């Protein structure tokens, strides 16, 4: 597939964020799961022009994707209210990495509860800078999707 994708390349990571419920016991995060799947090749046509470019470099997180995993898991706090009421589930978010590598426009595409959603947004928004996607040597903005799993061990 020679024709590079202009706007959207996806990053798929599922983070499992687990916390223990028993008070005064482990409330730390346990376990991170990363799922990698082959990228479906999508040809993009922009402004009526067919873009052909072989040297697209996907956005990267300094230190690699595992570092980003660690960043998310370390910084997310399981909201107290959700923990107390045993609210759990996956939050699906979309966000944009702009030309400067900043995470912008974080949106919930399917949420769990208000406090869990807000916590996920907060951590993504305060993420350190990424190295932006480059196409033909030029930085471009890309949209990403992420799922963060909030689950409580019994």
């Amino acid at each position, binding site marked *: 597939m020679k*024709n590079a994708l202009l*706007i*959207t*390349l*996806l*990053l*798929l990571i*599922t983070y499992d964020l687990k916390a223990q419920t028993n008070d005064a016991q482990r409330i730390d995060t346990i376990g991170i799961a990363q*799922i990698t*799947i082959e*990228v*479906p*090749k*999508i*040809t*993009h*046509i922009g402004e*009526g022009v*067919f873009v052909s470019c072989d040297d697209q470099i996907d956005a990267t997180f300094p230190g690699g994707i595992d570092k980003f995993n660690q960043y998310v898991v370390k910084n997310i706090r399981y909201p107290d209210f959700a923990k107390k009421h045993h609210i759990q589930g*996956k939050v*699906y978010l*979309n966000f944009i990495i702009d030309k400067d590598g900043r995470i912008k426009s974080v949106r919930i*595409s*399917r949420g769990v509860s208000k406090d869990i959603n807000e916590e996920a947004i907060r951590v993504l928004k305060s993420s350190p800078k990424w190295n932006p996607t480059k196409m033909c040597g030029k930085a471009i903005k890309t*949209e*990403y*999707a*992420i*799922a963060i799993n909030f689950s409580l061990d019994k």
Partner: protein
Amino acid sequence: MKKIYLIVFLTFSGILTYSQTLTNGGKIKPEQAIMDVRHYTIALNVDFAEHAINGYTEIKVNMAKPSHILLFDLMDSLNVSKVLVNGKTEHFDYKNNLITIHPEKELPVGDAIVRVYYSGKPHVARRPPWDDGFIWSKDSTGHQWMAITAEGAGGKLYFPCKDHPSDEPNEGVDMIITVPKDLFVAGPGLLQKVTKTGATATYHWKTNYTINNYSIIFNVGDYKVFSRPYITCDGHKATVQFYVLNEHADKANHFLDVFIKTIHEQEKYFGEYPFRKEKIAMAETPHLGMEHQTMVAYGNKFRYTKVGGEDYDWLMHHEFGHEWWGNKVTAKDWADYWIHEGICSFGDALYTREFAGEKEYNKIFQKSIFTFENKLPIVQHSDMDEDAAYINDIYSKGAFFMHTLRYVMGDSLFFPTLKKFVTSPQYTYDNLVSTDDVEQFFTKQGGYNLKPLFDLYLRTTNKLEIHIKSLPANKYLIQLQNIDMKLPLDITTDGVTKRLIVDAKGLRVESKSIPVIDPEVFYIKKIIIE
């Protein structure tokens, strides 16, 4: 909320009564029964000035028996100029919407490649999507806008094929469509390549998934593509795309918001989106809509209604639901069409359950019950063609049947069973299904025989007959008259509603007034008071 669904069901019953003159399926021709279609390549030039097409279709078939004849369906409105079998020109007849090829030597068992060159003006739809054909239209900026619907007429509208629901091209389809260079072709699967030569552009679309004949279509227009990354419920990455007319580009972002909410909701009930390796996509079309696999046609003109306080598009939801019910799970006989339309429509009601609650969900069915025609059973007999099988009740009564089944089995059993069915390899993709498959699966998972319920509501127009006999001392005997199974029944006596198990022998209840049976309407029923 009330109004929304009233409109939905009225729309269905109002429009669907237009009968189709073209049809497909029915009793399979013996010459075609021994031929398994593996793949189609459709390579056509589209002439917008003449409303014509020309090019070829290449069909890869696998012969189960040696044969002196090859038979393909193609509508007579076209002209066939040449037929090649394994690269060699062969004699053929072309009449009565059939191409009959007479290979010089008997065709042996195994694979064969048939290429048919043809041209002409394909049938034009008068009232799509209820009457099929090509739709030649223009958008308000003067750009050509073309679409095809083929659910009734079948693929033979414009490409030679085995036009029967029991056979899908297992290895997928390649479409190589040439149009004027200012236009964009939106097709199934993934776009491989666009070649621009002079005044034309050739779009090569390819799907590796098995696909039903009526989904093998393309759309042409002044499209702009909006894409978003998406993560499926199983954690796989996918892409959501909307092929929107340039003139409506400002509507695309909100459309995608509504669409993505719909995708997450359908995945919750039916499991992962079935064609994630290619794309999740909709294309704006000049007709209302159709479930074209991986390029679902959308023509509801961005008319949203509110469910749970947020924008919802019932038509988008319904057509997209067919990616599970119709495209992933496909009936092998049109007789079992309710599996597509009934379960898909039930899924539409689940959206309301999800975002507006159980009460609003119940109201949908309490209203839809008045729309049934109930003149013919949903499943009439085997070997049905599309036109004969396509009755309103496959939608509304089919959906109601699923509502009843949910009540009978209970949520903790019903929802996992439904998801298990639609995610089981045995009933999906290449493995087409029948009503019996659905019944036997639910019976097995449920742990008791559900056949009487399936038979009553799907194979007859009878209603559940509930007999209430008044006995002395404020007592009543409640019996099921025409079904040989135990069923749960909500019974209200003196203002208190209890869910009780009733059968033919009956159940005695005490009440100062006549008991109220099934007040929330989980059954299509007739109550006889003695």
